């Protein structure tokens, strides 16, 4: 059924990506989105992204994990390997009550199987739209390997609408917080 496709031979590209401890991380460098993928991205953005901001239009090469761990050079597809990166690179899960800092990571985890659905980067803690609202994380996300990069409130994601029961975790490469707090 896929003989024609097989005739093309392998066209997958990858680069060397390793964790701090030297574990190889499988990856691919994804093609740029075509007209159809760009249109789909725009349609999803228009439908669901009323409160999103766009940093970058639809682009290929990297996905969310490639954005935060491979400097936008490749897509890291295996969420089990994302856990390896967190461990090898010395990330720690922030306990309840410890706020994330800019450049910390937010993980969206499927509660059904504990698989990571998505990883984004914290940009800042931003005051909400009403006067009494508390500060909430504002996140930079590459939503998939053909999407653009969007900025959004930490809870403003599609996973609930897509039927996932998910939890939000914050991870940092910073050491345990000292007594002296920086103004954030």
């Amino acid at each position, binding site marked *: *059924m*896929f003989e*024609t*496709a*097989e005739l*093309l031979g*392998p*066209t*997958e*590209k990858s680069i060397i990506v390793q964790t701090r401890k030297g574990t190889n991380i499988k990856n*691919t*460098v*994804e*093609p740029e*989105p*075509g007209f*159809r*993928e760009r*249109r*789909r991205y725009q*349609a*999803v953005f228009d*439908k*669901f992204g009323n409160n999103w901001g766009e940093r970058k239009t639809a682009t290929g090469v990297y*996905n*969310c*994990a490639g954005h935060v761990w491979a400097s936008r050079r490749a897509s890291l*597809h*295996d*969420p089990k390997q994302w856990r390896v990166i967190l461990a090898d690179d010395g990330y720690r899960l922030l306990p309840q009550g410890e706020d994330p800092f800019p450049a910390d990571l937010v993980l969206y985890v*499927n509660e*059904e*199987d504990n*698989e*990571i*659905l*998505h*990883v984004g980067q914290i940009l800042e803690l931003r005051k909400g739209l009403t006067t009494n609202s508390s500060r909430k994380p504002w996140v930079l996300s590459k*939503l*998939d*390997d*053909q*999407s653009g990069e969007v900025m959004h409130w930490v809870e403003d994601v*599609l996973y609930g*609408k*897509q*039927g*996932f029961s998910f939890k939000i975790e914050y991870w940092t490469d910073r050491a345990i917080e000292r007594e002296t707090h920086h103004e954030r």
Partner: protein
Amino acid sequence: MSAKVLEQLKSEDFAVSVGFLSTAGALRRFLGRTSEVAAVRQSLREGAITENTIRGFVSALIESLRIGERLPHELALSALAVALETRPTDFADEFLRGLARLKLAELSLVIRVARECLKRRVTIAHRTAKAVDLAGASEEMPLLLAGSQSTFGGNGCGRTNAHLVCEVQ
């Protein structure tokens, strides 16, 4: 229904309804819950479409494959992979294994989804084979699983290549 259930997998509405998902595992899970995938499964069960209909549909999709460009309608192929995941036929095996062994950037999404589906398919096969062992049943003995629904041989189970698989609803 007929081939309409396949055509709707190519629609922009379907593509937009999927939204964005970063991992093949999540996409597989999501697609498995969609009415579009359910409709394909049901049409196959009821004979409104046949595996040959799907073969023709897939061939037409693959014709638009161009080097360096993502295949249009990758989501349609991914949805088919999920629809066929639990179907105990040689055709479903051919479809999933054929995709999973490719190394094409142009089809990268559906290849990853097919690999996820195969993992699940093997798990089902192992679980079923174990159930057969535990029941002391012969390979030819019909196997009835609580909650399973018939699509093949009257009991939802069958042998395909080396695997005994059941369609689990």
